[in-house]
């Protein structure tokens, strides 16, 4: 191995599984988008293909950056993303009640999509820098800095409001923290907190209502549409014409796909626009309705390929920074997939979140491809090759 040329080594160290799964998923996504945006809608799959090309270029650039430089840049990137999120409050474009976009000429940029990456790099840098072989577990004090690193951008995203992305960021952070090996007391406290969360949910939503006014922990603080989503999630048959309409229509789309699916461009729920945001957040319902259960399993296998590919990269990383970046990217993709498909199939409340590589959107595509680029960067281990 030591005798191989850098080029040969690059080829052998390239995470082929990851790249193949990514390419296939993107291809499926573009094929599916062509149906989701059938006439009279604009044909979005061409733009999506263009975004993918841009994403590949960005990923290649990220992959070839010196990891040392990447590590040095973690703090500035993180701060720049925070600044962008703050600026969004003042210059952002409002759409569907949320300030999520910068409009720059013909482009609409979603800073939250890039914030995720900045946050991951920052977390990885922290866990790399703070590594103490004599003290392998993380106590409360050592977990405060990463908690702050994650909470600040998550809170900024939450107030946009973009609950879906914020939740995804919180879950990703939690995954990374757990991966960093917290101490037993921390685990116990987290377990208690999780139970308390379930308790609150039960108290606020599930428990039979004895009187009109009753004690709720968080319910009264939620916005009406958020409250309705949780209600709808826990009781799918409530308010089918109103707040639960989309959840129901999405389930109808998915369920009516059956084993074989209705066929490409044949989905009635899609064609007649019963699905909200069918080319972005609800893209999976289009796929499920038209392609059926078996191909849905295939898609899940492709995501499993991406995730396991990412973990393979993490396992091969020579230093903690790379491993944590890889785990972070994997966790981000996992939670996005889980949250999105979970919401489309009624397993989770509806929140705005895209399905990686399937949903239409440049920001989403480019941010996922940056993640892939980071994985390739880590995989190539160029810091050991002497090229850097």
């Amino acid at each position, binding site marked *: 191995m030591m005798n191989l040329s850098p080029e040969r080594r690059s080829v052998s160290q390239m995470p082929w599984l990851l790249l193949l799964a990514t390419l296939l998923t993107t291809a499926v996504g573009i094929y599916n988008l062509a149906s989701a945006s059938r006439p009279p809608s604009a044909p979005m799959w061409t733009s999506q293909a263009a975004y993918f090309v841009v994403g590949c270029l960005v990923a290649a650039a990220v992959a070839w950056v010196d990891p040392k430089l990447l590590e040095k840049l973690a703090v500035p990137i993180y701060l720049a993303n925070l600044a962008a999120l703050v600026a969004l409050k003042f210059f952002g474009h409002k759409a569907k009640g949320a300030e999520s976009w910068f409009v720059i000429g013909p482009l609409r940029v979603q800073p939250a999509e890039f914030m995720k990456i900045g946050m991951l790099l920052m977390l990885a840098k922290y866990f790399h820098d703070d590594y103490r072989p004599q003290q392998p577990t993380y106590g409360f004090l050592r977990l405060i800095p990463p908690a702050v690193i994650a909470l600040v951008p998550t809170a900024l995203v939450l107030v946009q409001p973009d609950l879906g992305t914020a939740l995804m960021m919180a879950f990703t952070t939690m995954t990374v923290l757990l991966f960093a090996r917290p101490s037993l007391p921390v685990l116990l406290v987290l377990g208690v907190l999780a139970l308390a969360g379930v308790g609150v949910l039960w108290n606020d939503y599930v428990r039979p209502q004895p009187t009109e006014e009753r004690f709720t922990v968080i319910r009264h603080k939620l916005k009406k549409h958020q409250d309705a989503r949780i209600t709808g999630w826990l009781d799918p048959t409530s308010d089918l014409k109103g707040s639960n309409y989309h959840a129901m229509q999405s389930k109808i789309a998915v369920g009516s796909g059956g084993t074989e699916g209705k066929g490409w461009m044949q989905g009635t729920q899609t064609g007649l626009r*019963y699905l909200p945001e069918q080319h972005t957040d609800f893209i999976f319902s289009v796929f499920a309705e038209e392609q059926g259960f078996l191909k849905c399993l295939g898609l899940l296998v492709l995501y499993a390929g991406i995730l396991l590919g990412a973990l393979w990269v*993490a*396992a091969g990383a020579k230093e903690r920074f790379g491993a944590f970046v890889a785990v972070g990217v994997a966790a981000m993709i996992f939670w996005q997939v889980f949250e999105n498909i979970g919401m489309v*199939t009624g397993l989770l409340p509806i929140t705005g979140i895209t399905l990686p590589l399937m949903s239409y959107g440049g920001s989403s595509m480019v941010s996922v491809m940056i993640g892939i680029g980071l994985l390739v960067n880590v995989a190539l281990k160029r810091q050991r090759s002497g090229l850097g």
Partner: protein
Amino acid sequence: MIKLGQKSDAKELRPRIVGLGVFFVAGLLVLAVNLYRLMVVRYEEFLALSVDNQFKDVRLRAPRGLIRDRRGEVLVDARPSLDVFITPAFCQKCTAEVLPRLAEVLGWDEAERARVEGLIKSAHGPQRYQPLIAAVDVSRDAFDQLLARQFLLPGVDLEPVPHRSYRAGPTLAHLVGYMNEITQDELSRLNGSAERPPYALGDYIGRRGVERSFEHEVRGTDGWDKHVVNARGEVMRDARGNVLKGAQQLLPQPGNNVVLSIDARLQAEAERAFPGTAGAVVAIETKTGFIRAMVSRPAFDPNEMTGRVSPKRLAQLNQDPLQPMIFRAGAEHYHPGSTFKVVTLLAALQQGIMTPTSQVSCGGGYTLGSRRWRCHNERGHGLVDAKRALQVSCDTYFYRAADLMGIEPIAQMGKAFGLGSVTNLGVAAEVPGVMPDSAYHNKATPGGYTKGMALNTAIGQGDTNVTPLQLAVLYSAIGNKGKVLQPQLVMRLESPDGKVTKTFDPKLVREIPMTDEQHQLLIDALVSVVNEPGGTAFRTRSAEYTVAGKTGTAQVAKLGQVRLKKEQMDYFERDHAWFASFAPAEDPELTVVVLNEHGGHGGSDAAPTAAAVFAKYFELKKADAFALGEDWVAPKPPKPVFVPKPAAPADVSEPALASDVPAPPESTVQAPTPAPTQVPR
């Protein structure tokens, strides 16, 4: 602290990487299991829901049945009305852009634009998805212009909608009726709790005449279709613009056709020949009661009344002193005047008060107590018998008869002929008229019944009031030897493909007992009115067939209650001209009653119309017989008439023939004329 670039302890991380991998795969498995539950286990349920989702029930309007005349000529059908609809929910920038564009093309004024805007703004909730009618009957040009600009008019639909078309306009308007929008009350009453309600808001429903009486026959049953709709309820079309439909549909059942006994050709002739400003012509089949033609003038246009009448125009129609909305043939009553004398005569004969030969001396009037009732011929008719009395319409003869028998036998006879009660034509509202008897007068007249009232009634004045339709029934009964028939307008109902579903038979109401001698006397007398010199309708006799008839000139007892302009006063004070007749006298087929309201004299202003109708009737009968290859039996011509000097039989108008022409107005009666002082001679 470990420096940058330091080798990490990968082995330390590996177990947790494996754990994470297991967690990820488990997460994806949860998703897969959930997908299995939805897509495989509950597949049928969701498939049904998705099918349910994409279809919307669309009502297919049943074509309304036609109204035809007896020969099949279409009187009422449907035409396309080019209508403009707006669906508020789909109408983006409605008030800012769409309405101004519509206003420009359709030439709306500000008020109309504001009306439509109000209409759109008043729709809330699910109503916003219902198309509203913005304009009806727009011109072909405007329709095409809008079609070409439809991409600029979101939420605007342009459609040719079937609209009821009354081909003959005002002709037969009162009988055929019209339609307009159903009310909320009717909706809840007619729909009940039906699963597929027969009526919807905005539907038209028959309002008068046949349209109303036969609503349930002509309406048909609406069908239903399933149209593919998107989530907003918009109907989807394929690339060629055809509406996408579901597999199942229920076809509409068209309504039945109504066949009237009207002969449109005879109707046209009656309309043409009737000279009056107002009045009625009733032509019914003597032996069956079926109506062949019926004029009620003035009339309204049902095309206008059917959803196209403005409130202003409606007010105008209702305030017109000539009252075009009133069905004069059956829903307005008039003094019958001398046409009533047949009733008095038959009553007198049956009472034995008079015999065919008993004579009354007419000196120009009749004295009862201290009052004198004048005959229309102030010089007197001399000795008159029953036949002569009818022929010259001698009032004195009937005064004498009434004096002898009182009012009851007259009233009884009148009622037996159907006076004082509605004829049950059915398709139109009627008034019963008034056949006064002593009980009536005791109740209605201050001071109660006195014999003078019998005298007035005997000559068709006083409180006696009849509708032209009642008079037609009465004269048919005379021609028919006492058989009183219910008049009918509808002959049969036909299914849309022309099969007869129901036939209406003549309905005998009652039979008035009458001896052959009495019957013959009445016929002879009525024939002499038309066919013998001195008869009041001698001028209108035909050489080809024998008409039996009686003129009447009814004094208008009360002036109209509407305040009138000066030039109208004269009109509304004039007498009503009547002519009631049937032909051929020996075997009557057609009864024609003409009322020329404020028209003048029966012989000159009503009888010619009847003559024209008879002429047309026999002409058509002959033509139809030839067309069908049937035998044509000409009616018996009347007995030749001896006319002293100019032998021309038809046009005898010279005043030299004193007895020939009804020069003196008959029955210019005024009950009661006060005073012995006025009595001449």
